[in-house]
């Protein structure tokens, strides 16, 4: 599903150049649930941005579902993001003046879907994350856990190939974190490929594979025995 080879990325700040990613190789198969770990500055966010087509690598190749991601126009990048990827952010990034339902329907709007089917489909996903009753609420009327569920529903709405989650539980308490992780595991159980960037050990343990990043190189990549989030409760 995701295949990267010899990925390099550096940031130039004035005269100095910061080499963030130093030749990464990574292969993620369909249906995997992978966590990318590392301390801050390890390059994990940069990697996620490149995987999310929000940023572009200086060197190396990136294949997403067999499609090479290289020198894309802004327009093409937008289409690929919409079609292939669903984003889950630490700070939810819901649009404040839109209702839960409209937030979930937004990726479908950019797919050009008509209003009625769009809202019906969005409603289905809200039901899936258990928030159908909250459809007409605005984000600031919801709790953190509820917001993240809305964000997950939104990420799923366009039926992407891969979900990219950047510290999805970073802003939540441990109980809510487990509920969210449980939801993510359930979605993975249905066959969706999911990538989670985190620095929390217990969150990483709930995935099926941990990739450890340090100073721009992968120092460890192991398949683990998944711990179910529900077992913690």
């Amino acid at each position: 599903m995701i295949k990267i080879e010899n990925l390099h990325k550096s940031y130039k700040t004035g005269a100095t150049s910061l080499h963030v990613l130093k030749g990464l190789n990574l292969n993620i198969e369909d249906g995997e649930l992978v966590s990318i770990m590392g301390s801050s500055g390890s390059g994990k966010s940069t990697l996620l941005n490149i995987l999310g087509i929000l940023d572009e690598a200086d060197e190396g190749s990136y294949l997403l579902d067999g499609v090479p991601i290289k020198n894309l126009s802004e327009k093409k990048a937008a289409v690929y993001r919409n079609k292939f990827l669903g984003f889950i952010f630490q700070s939810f990034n819901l649009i404040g003046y839109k209702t839960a339902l409209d937030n979930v329907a937004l990726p479908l709007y950019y797919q050009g879907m008509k209003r009625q089917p769009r809202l019906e489909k969005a409603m289905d996903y809200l039901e899936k994350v258990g928030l159908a009753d909250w459809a007409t609420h605005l984000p600031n009327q919801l709790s953190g856990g509820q917001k993240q569920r809305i964000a997950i529903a939104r990420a799923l709405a366009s039926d992407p190939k891969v979900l990219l989650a950047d510290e999805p539980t970073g802003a939540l308490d441990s109980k809510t974190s487990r509920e969210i992780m449980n939801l993510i595991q359930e979605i993975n159980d249905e066959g969706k490929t999911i990538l989670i960037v985190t620095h929390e050990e217990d969150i990483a343990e709930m995935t099926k594979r941990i990739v450890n990043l340090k100073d721009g190189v992968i120092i460890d990549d192991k398949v683990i025995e998944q711990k179910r989030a529900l077992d913690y409760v």
Partner: protein
Amino acid sequence: MFDLDRWEEIFETIRKNKLRTFLTGLSVLSGIFILVVLLGIGEGIQNGIEHQFQNDAENRISIWPGRTSVDYKGLNKDRRIQFKNKDYDLVVRKFEDNLEYKSSLYRVWRSMITYKSESGNYRIESVYPDYQFLENQTMVEGRYLNPTDLNNYSKVAVIGEKMKKELFGKATATGEYIMINGINFKVIGVYSDPGGDRAESRVAIPITTGQRVFNGGDQIRSMSFTLPTMENFDQALAASEGFITDIERQLKQTHTVAPNDNSAISINNTLKEAKRIYFMISSIKIFFWFVGIATLLAGVVGVGNVMLIIVKERTKEIGIRKALGAKPNSIIWMILHEAIFITAIAGFLGLFLGMVLLDAVGPMIKSDFLRNPAVNFQVAVATVVILVIAGTIAGFFPARRAARIKPIDALTDE
């Protein structure tokens, strides 16, 4: 262009961001409102001034005699000059082809005029038929004097509307007989004069009759002419100046007046006056347009500014939208579409309010120099359209900037 979904998207943002919408709209609305009111006042001033000088035909040249102020050819100064019929005939004969309207005038300042039991003192003007046009008069009933009246020394009179009201009330005056200085005159018409009550408190009779009845002999008080209108104002002015110079020389020669004597013969050229007034009016108009355009420009800059702020405020939202698959063009359109919509609505609202104000307050203004302030609807609509277009252009650059926002930057901007 007409994409229902996009409109829904925009209405939603507008509904949910009332303050932002209100502020954008307000700057546009007030700009157009001020422009419309200014243009209206400019128009009102023009109307007022034009009205002030509309009393007589605008290219009228009047000539009347005075007293000499210079000794000349053995004649003392302070000698009174008297125009005669032959002076008028001379001018007419000499300039026949160049004249549009012409009339001499023999005037009796005050005379008792009676109709049945009503009576009053009125000025009597003995004139030629053309005098109607020289005074810019229009007939309210009946007809004006004609050449036959002059040839027959007819005892006919055309009276002013004010005078008619005083003597006849609401009844018809035409066909009735009034008594002027003990002689019966038949009223053949009633005129109205833009000069108002004073000019309508007069009676016009044939000059031949007047000179005979009032023992005027061949004396005349003054003479007036107009030259045919010309395409070009400056041409018309030059022609009239040339005409005046010729007449002045001619009359001074006939009456043995020194060429440098300025008080013996007075000539008033309305056209020259008109030039000054037109210049004044156009200066005022240019000034108001300048202020108006500056206001519009400020409005456009305001729109651009608000757009920049909107883009700044929506940076994160734009980042989210882009991460969800919004194409750059859709971001530009989202920003512009909203701006165009608000600008257009607010612009027309400002236009409407401005016109309502002019309509409501305009008729109440009773100043000589401000009359019927109104604005040309097409001009006003055009300014709104220009503002919308300019606002779009001003909004395009912030919108393009918005489209270039990188989602990562926008999303990590916390």
